[in-house]
């Protein structure tokens, strides 16, 4: 299974090769991390992915455009609306249509809700990896109301398949606005409280400050994406760089932190949750009336021949899709540029020289989705 790596290395008598994975409680999703350890120090790290490679890009070529949407969901199940959005906006620009005004609002709100729940789970996973089980469970508890909100609109807890070409699948249900505002208020209070715990607890600070430092330069060279990159002080957010939907008109700031250590990466995520809540609160008052999708048959979509690269800001960073159409009912080629893949490749250099005990903290502070890496 892992023969190639092992035959290449020569171990000293005091070193050992430790496999972390594929079944390891490090992260949601299997991957293999080979560590060469001397004592407790990691001398070398090798990453092997592909344990849940499903061939999504190939499957997309054999589906009609509408049938593609549920498959894009399952690329990263924590950010399925982002994945829908990046695919649909690409196809929309191939077709030369625009989503309706109401759909834009709904999509933006859904995207931000997705970001909140993904970050909550990411922080929770990370908390359990440093042994903070209570924080993990609190985060999951905070996540459940968001999931119910998403479920209220889309009908599913995880894989929503909600975005359509030129609109969304369903309209917002009655009472959505009140429920959202109430939920978000509660979540803001709780997240602020957790933020306080995470910035004042001395044991936690000792565990995270100055650990796994990813410098600004290294982050840019490795192409690390999303909060992991902004945690290193790089001010890069697709919502500002290449705005889509309503983002040009919205008031929000890109969260960055200067140090690039584990603490900062998590801090960025916590602050982004608060920022997302602020964005939703801006949008939700101004949702206009009108249709929620363009009126044409979604089963007969046939974009003009051409190619397009569309991108959105996933909870994990820049999510891009390169879609080639040959004028038939099915895409000719879909190439996915996922953020988690780039984030994962920063892991081996970061782990080199770290403690075995920090390895879990560093790996899960990157919050990369194995499923999306493998596709």
């Amino acid at each position, binding site marked *: *299974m*892992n023969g190639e790596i092992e035959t290449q290395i020569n171990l000293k008598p*005091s070193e*050992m090769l430790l496999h972390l*994975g*594929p079944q*390891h409680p490090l992260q949601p999703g299997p991957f293999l991390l080979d560590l060469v350890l001397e004592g*407790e*120090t990691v001398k070398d790290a090798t990453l092997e992915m592909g344990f849940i490679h499903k061939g999504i890009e190939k499957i997309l070529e054999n589906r009609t455009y509408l049938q593609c949407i549920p498959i894009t969901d399952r690329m990263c199940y924590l950010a399925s609306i982002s994945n829908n959005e990046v695919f649909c906006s690409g196809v929309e620009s191939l077709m030369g249509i625009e989503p309706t005004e109401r759909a834009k609002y709904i999509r933006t709100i859904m995207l931000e809700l997705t970001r909140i729940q993904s970050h909550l789970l990411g922080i929770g996973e990370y908390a359990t990896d440093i042994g903070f089980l209570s924080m993990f469970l609190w985060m999951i508890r905070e996540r459940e109301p968001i999931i119910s909100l998403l479920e209220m609109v889309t009908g599913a807890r995880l894989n929503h398949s909600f975005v359509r070409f030129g609109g969304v699948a369903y309209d917002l249900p009655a009472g959505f606005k009140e429920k959202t505002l109430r939920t978000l208020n509660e979540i803001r209070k709780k997240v602020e409280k957790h933020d306080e715990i995470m910035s004042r607890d001395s044991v936690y600070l000792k565990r995270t400050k100055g650990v796994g430092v990813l410098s600004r330069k290294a982050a840019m060279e490795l192409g690390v994406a999303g909060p992991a990159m902004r945690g290193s002080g790089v001010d890069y957010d697709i919502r500002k760089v290449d705005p889509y939907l309503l983002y040009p008109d919205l008031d929000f700031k890109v969260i960055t932190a200067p140090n690039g250590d584990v603490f900062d990466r998590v801090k960025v995520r916590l602050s982004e949750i608060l920022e997302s809540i602020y964005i939703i609160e801006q949008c939700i008052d101004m949702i206009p009336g009108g249709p929620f999708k363009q009126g044409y048959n979604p089963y007969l979509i046939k974009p003009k021949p051409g190619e397009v690269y569309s991108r959105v800001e996933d909870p994990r960073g820049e999510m891009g899709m390169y879609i080639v159409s040959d004028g038939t009912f099915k895409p000719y080629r879909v190439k996915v540029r996922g953020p988690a893949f780039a984030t994962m490749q920063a892991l081996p250099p970061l782990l080199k020289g770290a*403690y075995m005990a920090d390895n879990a903290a560093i790996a899960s502070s990157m919050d990369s989705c194995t499923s999306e890496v493998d596709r």
Partner: protein
Amino acid sequence: MSGIIDSFIPVAIFLVFGFVMPVATMIIVKQISPRSQAGRKLSTYESGSVPFGDARIMFNVQYYLFAIVFVIFDVEVMFLYPWVTVYLGVDKFFTTMSVIEVVLFVLVLFVGYLYALKKGALQWVK
């Protein structure tokens, strides 16, 4: 003398019981639990991977330095145990002298500690 032996007889009984009870339980468990032979049931677990090499390696020498430093300090602390029970004994002169002696002893211990600290013997990884 017999008082000391008397107080350790229950300890001996507990010691025997502590060895017999788990062993007996394990024999019963072996009998009543199911057994199966799957292909690689007895292979070493390593997160689903096939382990590379043996686990029993020559471990980092730093651990042994810790152990040596520990032995030194623990033995020195051991010398203090008899002292605590007797130092307030006979008269004022005895008490004063014994306290001075122990303060000197602890000082020497502390100098040794500082030396070990300076040399980095108490550093986890140099």
